[in-house]
């Protein structure tokens, strides 16, 4: 049996075509401190130049035998391009992702410049995608991600304001979500054109520990469906937190795959969404790569596979300061234990 190249393995998975073994990849951040250190740069620097962004992502893939490379790493690129100041924590030696200290207080204050793709670090992401596409991307799958409409709205408007408005000023929220949905559709197409092979829409602000399933159905799902209908390339919908109550609706979003975290009851979700839907999940991206004993890793990966996933994914960004042996073991176990067919994807 011929071994597939990483990129082909990932892309065939999205097409539900038989593969040799389960790819180990993600649609969330998977940059690692060992990779960053080997490049002689500091954590805050990986967000600032195309070379550092692409370089640290590629190095992480190389060191830990991933099948894909994912950029960008932080959730502030779009808000920054809209004009909101961000904190990069340039002087910190800790692992601190960029944040937005002050957001707008109402949707009506938001400024969405037409040339936002030329602002802030948006060109950095584009160039990083280009570098990866023209380099490692020949053999490895390039992944990228965008926040979903509601989660992106919560990055630019204070979240408590936004949440309360879903009850008392819903039309204002809907109007904002419509604008962001259009922007996300265009940005996804743009990232695909710049080099991404697959896109993960991260709508993590809409799990049932935050919003009601009713609100998800009437306010969130229609926008997700619009995005995925417009995206003509491999796609994932990722929602972390409580997703048991909305798993079926996630599957109705039109995404090729859905991804959940460890708060989801995976086996039940598999039953709900059927065997044709690609299901990704759901190891803990902190405890398993950082703290778990080796035997715990094996049982955790096997648990995900037994529950019916088509790809074992971390439920969130992998905590960058990994135990190197742990992350290698995770990825090797995924490939070793993933040789049998999964519910939606056969084997060569």
């Amino acid at each position: 049996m011929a071994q597939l190249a990483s990129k082909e393995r990932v892309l065939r998975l999205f097409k539900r075509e038989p593969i040799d073994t389960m790819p180990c990849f993600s649609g969330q951040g998977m940059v690692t401190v060992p990779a960053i250190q080997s490049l002689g740069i500091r954590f805050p620097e990986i967000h600032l130049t195309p070379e550092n962004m692409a370089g640290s992502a590629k190095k992480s893939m190389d060191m830990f035998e991933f099948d894909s490379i994912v950029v960008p790493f932080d959730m502030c690129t779009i808000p920054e391009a809209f004009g909101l100041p961000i904190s990069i924590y340039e002087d910190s030696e800790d692992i601190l992702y960029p944040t937005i200290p002050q957001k707008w207080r109402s949707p009506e204050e938001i400024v969405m410049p037409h040339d936002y793709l030329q602002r802030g670090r948006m060109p950095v992401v584009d160039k990083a995608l280009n570098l990866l596409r023209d380099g490692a991307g020949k053999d490895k799958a390039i992944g990228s991600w965008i926040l979903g409409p509601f989660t992106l709205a919560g990055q630019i408007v204070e979240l408590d304001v936004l949440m309360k408005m879903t009850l008392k000023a819903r039309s204002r929220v809907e109007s904002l979500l419509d604008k962001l949905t259009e922007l996300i559709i265009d940005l996804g197409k743009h990232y695909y054109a710049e080099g991404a092979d697959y896109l993960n829409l991260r709508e993590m602000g809409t799990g049932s520990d935050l919003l009601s399933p009713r609100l998800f159905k009437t306010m969130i799902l229609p926008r997700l469906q619009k995005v995925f209908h417009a995206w003509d390339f491999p796609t994932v919908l990722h929602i972390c937190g409580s997703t048991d109550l909305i798993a079926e609706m996630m599957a109705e979003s039109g995404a090729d795959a859905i991804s959940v975290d460890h708060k989801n009851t995976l086996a039940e979700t598999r039953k709900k969404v059927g065997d044709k839907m690609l299901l990704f999940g759901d190891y803990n991206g902190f405890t398993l790569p950082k703290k778990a004993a080796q035997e715990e890793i094996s049982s955790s990966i096997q648990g995900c596979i037994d529950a019916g996933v088509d790809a074992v994914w971390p439920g969130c960004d992998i905590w960058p300061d990994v135990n190197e042996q742990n992350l290698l073991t995770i990825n090797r176990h995924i490939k070793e234990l993933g040789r049998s067919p999964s519910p939606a994807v056969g084997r060569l």
Partner: protein
Amino acid sequence: MAKEKLREELLKQLSDNVVSFDEDKVAEAAERVVAEGLDAYDAIINGLAAGMEIVGDLYDKHEYFVPELLMCADALYAGLDILKPHIKEKEGKETLKGQVVLGTVQGDVHDIGKNLIKMMFEVGGFTVHDLGRDVPLEKFVEEQVRTDSEIVALSAMMTTTMMGMKKVVEMIKEKNPQVLIMLGGAPVTNDVAKLFGADGYAESAGNAVQEAIKMIGRLRELQKK
């Protein structure tokens, strides 16, 4: 007797209108408590907090979610702002349960859970030292030492920021092992709380409220005895 009936009626109004997140009606009932010379602390604990206890149950039953919690919190504050200045000195001494330092750790700007916890501590009569969000880790230690607070509550919404909490726990426990430390946020599990050496945890804004409600509930039970 008439006064007791009035008390019960107003407590019910406070509780019901927190649940239905009607700020105006909560404020109206609170004003009447003050005007009738009723016990303000009683109204806070057995009216406002009792309402929030129902809200917590509704969250547990998946009938209420975070937007509803936030609206209920606004309604509660509408009453609390009116009633708090009227807690009598003697009652005040009885109700001062301690001090808590709270904040969202550096690198994290999500503060909904932190603000809900803050509200419940305020309802319970704690003196709250709110450091806000994106707080440098050393600041928690400095504030705990400065205020001699018994509790420090830390929040982080993302895996990528929760490691800061571990450092704070270590720094505080090193200086004062008696301080109780609560962790909150989506990535915080029982395992993580244990690993970090914390004394308690809540994994979501709703759970945080539930944990605080349990504390307030115990307080109410004690007061009935």
